[in-house]
């Protein structure tokens, strides 16, 4: 006889706030963010790690939250698109996306912005090629990518 575990404890930090909740053992991080924490900025796209719409930062690394088991996030720090805003102000990356028209339907945008955030944290002066590399795991079906790359490029510090 195997024991059937209904729910498991999960204690982690989301957007700087310590959280403790009980989740089903097979729940993905994405499901917990959207369903339990109602952080619906992170999107469900393909569910199999191809599109990047569910991108969040997990301990500072960009990951597809649809392919991470919530249970495995115990003790870790998660940053979602909701965590980028401060004092009611959009993050500079969000502002750049608005300014450059890098958003059309908006579905890929949170994931794009989180991937761009991870890039700029690691490399504040990326080249265009480095930006394209960093966003290669995020699909956009509207923009053709040009405006997205331009928006991120506008944030690259001089002297790269």
């Amino acid at each position, binding site marked *: 006889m195997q024991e059937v575990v209904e729910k498991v404890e999960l204690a982690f930090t989301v957007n700087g706030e310590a959280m403790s909740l009980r989740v089903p053992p097979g729940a*993905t991080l994405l499901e917990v963010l959207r369903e339990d924490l109602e952080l619906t900025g992170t999107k469900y796209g393909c569910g199999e790690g191809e599109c990047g719409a569910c991108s969040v930062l997990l301990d500072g690394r960009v990951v597809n939250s649809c392919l991470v088991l919530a249970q495995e996030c115990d003790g870790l720090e998660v940053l979602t698109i909701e965590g980028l805003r401060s004092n009611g102000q959009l993050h500079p990356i969000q502002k750049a996306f608005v300014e450059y028209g890098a958003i059309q339907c908006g579905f890929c945008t949170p994931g794009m912005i989180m991937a761009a955030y991870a890039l700029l944290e690691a490399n504040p002066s990326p080249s265009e090629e480095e930006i394209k590399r960093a966003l*290669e795991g995020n699909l956009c079906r509207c923009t053709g990518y040009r405006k997205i790359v331009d928006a991120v490029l506008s944030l690259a510090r001089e002297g790269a």
Partner: protein
Amino acid sequence: MFLPQVQLHEAASLDQASDALVRYAPHVRPLAGGTDLLVDLKTGRLRLEHLVSLNRIDSLRGVSELDGCLRIGALTTVTTLDRSPMLAHGFSPIRDATRKMAAPQIRNVATVGGNIASAVPCADLPPILTAMKASVVLWSPEGRREVPLHSFFIGARETVRRDDELLTEALVPLPQPGFGAAYARFGLRDGNTIAVAAVAAGLLLDGDDTIRDARIVLGAVAPVPKLVESAGAALVGQRPDEDAFRATAVTAMEAAEPISDVRGSADYRRELVGVLTERALTTACERARRSR
């Protein structure tokens, strides 16, 4: 797509992991990065009741040099390996694979052990590591054994790993002076692709520019990463020139056992093997000459 009900057992040690894998066999798999395994579960390609997470076993992380070998812990992510200062000089051809694999979101999570042990035919690390004569360490409470990578795979998603064993590390011997390796792959786009076909080459040149040893390994065109021994053997004693590489390419094309799928037809893949063999050999030769 949702994951079916599955029990996750978080192993605190190799002993615990091995014990759980035996207890729940055959309805169990070890879980590392999960970027392949969780997709297989979601799509129903694989049905399991249990997962044994290795992610709390910290001794499985990290890249180091051990007795003249590069030791890559099984839980080392592709990103960590790619950025490791240990991949200098002779070990740098491994970056041909880590740079091109998938996308940052996957590379940040996918592990070296998973890329090998999942035995997916189009995996990027096995061909280059095989060309560099790497082996893997399989650990069980009974003991550890080192298996050369070219005899680790027995079929698509099948390896010689027993139920009670865990792949704990990959070992890559320190390349000797005059050795160069390269991995050439073709994907349908530049970014975030799965290899349609791939070829890894390893060449050892002596001071007279004669080939002393050679390995050609094919990826994504056979059920396993395929070491073409006849292609390597035919190069020994030859000059590394275009004619020799062209002849090797023909041998490699004949050895390929490609399938047709959504990414390419079997015929197309076989043609790619020819082109990629020449490319991999040319780059491996340049690197071999620089390393003398």
